[in-house]
């Protein structure tokens, strides 16, 4: 019986942690800073701070829809 209870507790804990791990970042959190090369030169996220809102769109592959 005790083992069964502990198995249940463990399952609940695992399920509770799974979604947060798959998303990682949350709303209200600071966006991780980065520097990367782009079709219009080097992009630094810090360059936009205090100036512009940024829409950062990750997609799968060029020449595919979306």
């Amino acid at each position, binding site marked *: 019986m005790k083992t069964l209870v502990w198995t249940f507790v463990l399952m609940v804990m695992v399920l509770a942690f799974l979604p947060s791990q798959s998303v990682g970042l949350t*709303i209200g959190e600071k966006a991780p800073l980065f520097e990367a*090369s*782009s*079709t219009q030169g080097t*992009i630094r996220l810090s360059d*936009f701070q205090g100036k512009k809102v940024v829409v950062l769109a990750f997609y799968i592959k060029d020449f595919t829809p979306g």
Partner: protein
Amino acid sequence: MQAFQDDLLKFEGLGAQVLGVSADDLETHKRFSAELGLRFPLISDSDGKLAGLYGKGRITFLIDSQGVIRLIQPGFPKNEEILAEIRKLEKKP
């Protein structure tokens, strides 16, 4: 990315910068941009550095001018939802 180009004037009108990111190399990105006529930058994340920081797969983040994440949209981007959120940010003092 075509959908972002279609709505680019709306995003620019609200002072937002659109950035596309995928693992493709810059050469492929340039051909893709030329074919679709994209005027916003495409970032080459060939080493997966950004995906490692932000998460894998198709996902869009709205980052305000203070660098704070305001919207996380998994799946295909929904421009109207993103634009509405930017308008909300503008109204705040």
